[in-house]
């Protein structure tokens, strides 16, 4: 990347250095996607085999309203989670970015530390926290409130989704906030802007690329979550991730599962593309876009 302007030999070397990354992406991303895309048109056999061949039946079956219902619910949950994570992530990122330079790395590491624990263990921890014997319910009972266990509930699902994806929201927002000149805040204050105006007119617009990355990085993976709704939501309202697991395993229908995966994949790509377009339109109209790269969101 450094020697873009130097002669051809080093450009060749540049391509060579790119090779490992391209190989990894081809092997781990493109090849599996091609396999899934191929399987989505295959004929299934009732014993669970994949007979190959070509059929559109799998996609036709997905027209059943039950799939639309689950997809709609999943998109809603993903959008809600992306919104909640981005708002909370903004607050956390702003707090960290306004601390002294020395404390910032420490705070960032603290954000990551819980994530060194296994995902499933952390999910079970939420059951304990919000369950009937847990501290939250005990406290409410001490205060004389007749409280029932919060597991299973929509609230428990929302909370643990926020917890699972918060760092993913904090990092890109923090990254774009760091490049905001701190004197802008003083300038805003000098010109009589209050807390709300300072954020709405300076910090939010200037960290827009980070906010957009945060929305994408939380929205897309939430669509694939399947453990949290079962353990904390009681599994009564499956997300599309649960449905795909069921199709692949209990229903012994790899092709149908593959077709549903493709639908989800296309929805994800569309939402990433939409975010990219919005960002490009924004940065075209914004004047202070020098240090920001609007392509980052679409590259994710």
């Amino acid at each position, binding site marked *: 990347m450094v020697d873009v302007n130097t002669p051809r030999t080093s450009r060749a070397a540049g391509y060579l250095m790119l090779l490992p990354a391209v190989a990894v992406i081809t092997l781990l991303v493109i090849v599996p996607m091609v396999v899934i895309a191929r399987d989505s048109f295959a004929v299934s056999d009732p014993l669970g085999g994949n007979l190959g061949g070509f059929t559109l039946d799998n996609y036709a079956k997905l027209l059943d309203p039950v799939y639309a219902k689950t997809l709609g619910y999943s998109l809603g949950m993903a959008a809600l989670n992306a919104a909640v994570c981005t708002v909370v992530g903004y607050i956390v990122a702003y707090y960290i970015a306004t601390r002294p330079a020395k404390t910032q790395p420490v705070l960032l590491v603290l954000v990551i530390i819980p994530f060194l624990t296994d*995902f499933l263990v952390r999910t079970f921890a939420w059951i304990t926290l919000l369950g009937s014997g847990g501290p939250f319910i005990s406290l409410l009972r001490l205060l004389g409130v007749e409280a029932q266990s919060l597991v299973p509930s929509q609230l428990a699902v929302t909370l643990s989704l926020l917890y699972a994806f918060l*760092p993913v929201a904090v990092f890109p927002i923090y*990254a774009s906030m760091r490049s905001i000149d701190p004197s802008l805040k003083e300038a805003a204050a000098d010109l009589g802007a209050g807390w709300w105006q300072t954020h709405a007119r300076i910090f939010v617009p200037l960290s827009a690329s980070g906010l957009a990355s945060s929305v994408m*990085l939380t929205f897309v*993976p939430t669509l694939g979550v399947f453990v949290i709704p079962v353990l904390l939501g009681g599994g009564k309202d499956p997300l599309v991730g649960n449905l795909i697991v069921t199709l692949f*395993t209990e229903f012994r229908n790899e092709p149908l599962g593959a077709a549903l995966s493709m639908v989800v994949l296309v929805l994800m790509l569309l939402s990433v593309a939409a975010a990219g377009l919005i960002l490009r339109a924004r940065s075209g109209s914004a004047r202070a876009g020098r240090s920001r790269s609007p392509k*980052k969101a679409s590259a994710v």
Partner: protein
Amino acid sequence: MNKKFLAFGAVALASATVLSACSAGGDASSTGAAGSGSLSIYAWAGEIPDSVIEGFEAETGIDVTVDTFDSNETMISKLAAGNSGYDVVEPSQYAVQLMVERDLIAEIDKSKLEGFDNLAEKFVDPSFDPGNTHSIPWAWGTTGILYNEACTGAEVTGWADMWNPDYAGKVYMLDNMLSAYIAGLQVNGLSATTTDEAEIATATDSLLEQKPLLGGYNSTNYADLVGTGDACIAEAYSGTTAAKAVEANPDVHYIIPEEGGTLWTDSFSIVAGTANEDAAYQWLNYTLRPEVAALVTDDASLASTNAAALELVADQSQVENPAIYAPADSLTNSEFIVDPGDALAYFQDGWTRVRAS
């Protein structure tokens, strides 16, 4: 550079979250090396105690590798992919049927077996594998009801109690299609092994009617929920976790519903085309010994299929625990859940509607 690092960190975190979510439903896997003097087994998690493996290794000098799975479907798809490297697998009853039809397991040569007579009567010539041509049952259990009497306030006798509105929000069903249909069919007085479209539709209606009463579908930690009283009544598999819940709390009981019971059994089968056939037969013969079979109860809290093993179980309270060994009189009408064949489509259509309702 710092900014790039941060972006990288965010992406890495995102993928780590997704990946760990995947592994939550996964299995441990390190395929053992195939060769002389080795045996690679693919079995249900928690069903082969270490004591059995160590004893076998000490006696035969064969090096055993055990990988575990937590669903038949995972196991079958791994074998179907080919070159799994496994010699012995442990399918459940309906999985035996599927694997026979797909030629994934080999026919067992009875003349090479010793101790086959030790098996209890109901596991000899079972409905899912006539003549035991492809499977030797190892552990068995039932699908029944786990309930907390402090919460229900009354004795629970059958599936009908899982439709009792008094327990609304505290009823849990297993998150498994065929298991849920056991309750749905038997509560209507129908056979759990039916393949009749109208009967399955009746069960679907019952399950739809039940859904508003449910706390949830759960195959993971329902025993804990019943123990704490967060669940009053749950459809449950007998075995380790149910047995522990019954032992730990005197209010928790495990029963076989009066409408009928169902049995499951996990059997050892030899993988078709294995390179270690001799070692596989040595394994089958070793696990047919009563003193070895008794270890599945002592060390894994599961019921043994070996009739001669019962009196050799060191802790006889385990044999009396209904969450491990269901009482014989409750099993008179019990049947094995077998593969529904073409009727699977009726179950799937119904189950999809139930789950999405």
